[in-house]
């Protein structure tokens, strides 16, 4: 069957690339996760079976970091969605200087996250920063990196930097929505809120799911803001998964343990993605 062989031949470069770029690091990490490998070890490490996974599952600090990250993602992406949707709806109505406002709005996205983290570290500094000074002028004192607040401050930094991304996706989605149902609803006398709830948002649903998913995946990787500002403090309040795994694997040299944690995160994230897409497919088929 020459045609079948040809088809396999055509897919071979992609398969090779996949094995090399994704498969090998993944396979290597899977292998490390069942060893006691430390970066300061010499020679081949010992296989320890599921010991690292058992240790990670029973490690309160790991699950604490999981919870911290989940809360961070929820707050950051939730705010980005609401603010992003509002801005996108407003921008859709804009008549002039569209290109200028859109390019200005996207500017935060082009700054590297570590620079954003360092900038906010000093902008929010109570003694040296501009924002606390302005708040002080109106009689407000707020400890941005204090207990109970630091995680929300980090989420706010995420909102500042990544809301434009949400705007970009939602705006593209809004502009691709067919105009006819909207015009028909308006002719029938539907209010703006009704049109938004019953027509715009349902038609925008596929874009919304993708936008939320992309932002959630990205927000889960938060590392730079933590590294530049709180280093996981106060206590362990801002110890996110990436920072926790970085400390375990790189700072403390325990790469075997860190790989097992990374794999647990991978499985959880994959499960969430699969569930999200299945739900989307089900909604579409209805």
């Amino acid at each position, binding site marked *: *069957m020459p045609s*079948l062989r040809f*088809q*396999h031949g055509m*897919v071979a470069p992609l*398969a090779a690339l*996949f*094995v090399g770029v*994704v*498969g*090998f690091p*993944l*396979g*290597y990490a*899977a*292998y*490390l996760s069942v*060893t006691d*490998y430390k*970066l*300061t*070890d*010499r*020679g*081949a*490490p010992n296989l320890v079976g599921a010991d690292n996974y058992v240790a990670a599952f029973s490690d309160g600090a790991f699950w604490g970091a999981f919870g911290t990250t989940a809360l961070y993602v929820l707050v950051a992406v939730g705010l980005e969605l609401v603010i992003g949707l509002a801005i996108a709806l407003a921008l859709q109505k804009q008549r002039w200087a569209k290109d200028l406002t859109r390019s200005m709005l996207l500017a935060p996205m082009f700054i590297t996250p570590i620079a954003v983290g360092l900038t906010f*570290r000093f902008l929010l*500094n*109570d*003694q*040296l920063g501009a924002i*606390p000074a302005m708040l002080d002028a109106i009689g407000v*004192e*707020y*400890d*941005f*990196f*204090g*207990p109970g607040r*630091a995680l929300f401050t980090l989420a706010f930094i995420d909102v500042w930097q990544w809301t434009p991304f949400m705007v970009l996706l939602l705006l593209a989605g809004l502009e691709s929505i067919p105009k006819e149902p909207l015009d028909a609803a308006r002719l029938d006398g539907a209010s703006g809120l009704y049109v938004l709830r019953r027509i715009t948002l349902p038609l925008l649903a596929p874009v919304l799911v993708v936008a939320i998913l992309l932002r959630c995946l990205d927000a889960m990787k938060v590392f730079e803001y933590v590294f530049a*500002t*709180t*280093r*996981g*403090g*106060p*206590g*362990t309040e801002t110890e996110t998964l990436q920072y926790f795994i970085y*400390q375990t694997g*790189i*700072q*403390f*040299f325990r790469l075997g343990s860190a790989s097992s944690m990374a794999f647990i995160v991978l499985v959880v994230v994959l499960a969430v993605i699969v569930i999200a897409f299945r739900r989307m497919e089900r909604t579409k088929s209805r």
Partner: protein
Amino acid sequence: MRITQWPTSGRRSGRPGTAFSAVMALVAVLALVLTGCAGSGGPEQAEATGTGEVSTDVSGTVRILMENVPDTDIVKSMVADFNKEYPGVEINIESLTFDQMRDKLVSSFQSSSPTYDLIVVDNPWMVDFANAKFLQPLDARIDSTPDYDAADFFKPLTDITTVDGARYGVPFYNYALGYLYNADDLAAANQQVPTTLDELVSTSKALKSGDRAGIAMQPQRGYKIFEEWGNWLFAAGGSIYDADGKITLNTPEAKRALKAYIDTYNTAAPANSLSWGMDEAQRSVSANQAASMINYNWQLPALNEPGSGPAAGKIKLATIPGGKQVLGSWSWAIPANSATPDAAWAFVSWITAKPNDVVRTEKGGAAIRQSTLQDPAVLGGQFGEEYYRTVEQLLANAAPLTQGPSGEEMIQAVGTELNEAVAGKKSVDDALAAAQAEAEKIQG
């Protein structure tokens, strides 16, 4: 997992036997490759060191990995003079930020082909790197280098380079902490330089006026708070390890030190500074927003440099109350897989030799040798005799935060507990008990 599934997924080839064999072969090859990947690099045992008497005819390229700090720039500025004596040695310095440097260092050790021929090692890494045999023992070289006088290095610095009786490095520069204060503020508040823990607390409170803090502190979780609080612990008469090397963080002295630290943070430090580290504290003092801080001794010249801020020229350095301070240090070390260890030692022994150490220190490099701090050229130089006399006292009585394996992890664990106590999330007793337990678990 995905690799093994790949050949069987997609369309069937109609020849299951072949596909199965291919999968098994792929699994076998991968297993071999993966097993061979981890920790395969470098020699199993660190090579015995050569002689310290390296001929000036030696040739080769010495690739050095260093931290991106002013001391590295000073070393770079001296390479031309080194090449006048050793024309055949090419010095190639790569400088990176601290975190990038550690990551690159560890990966370079794992490589079978050498990446760096000479490195600098931070003190918490020394025991781990030496135990892993990443570094060459340098005793033979140090002892056979003519006119080297290794006993002239400050002992707390050489103690850090010594692991199980063998020396794996020579000092590059010190990170000893000291008490930095604004002399005008101290005089205005009618205060003396504190010499006890109680005086440190009362002076810090007395120095606070309005929005200006009495002392800029560094309670940031992890390394910074432990590094700063360690000085308070010493001032309270406590220690991190006892004479037998056992951890002593849950003691009455430690409790007194932590209570005093929290009291001072709540009453004399800048408001809302729980995440502050070295940069914020330095900027606060430099901007005249805080009257004192505990920080690295070598920050004094930068703080007093004309034009650096409104506090320039007013800052002075003193020992930590009680006389003992926390010490950090960087040391020169030769990796076990160095391609040019002789040329590397030629450079290390040259830059740390007495006459060249004087030049390096005159240029602003941090002190490592006792004799250098007696040299008239240094004492009469840009930073003044008073500064160097204090540095001499700092280095005479100083101890690092960690002296065992997994130093970095121990520091982070203790620093997290201390930060929890300052944030009010744990009591002093609970935090210190947890710090003791964590440190014992990590360092055995």
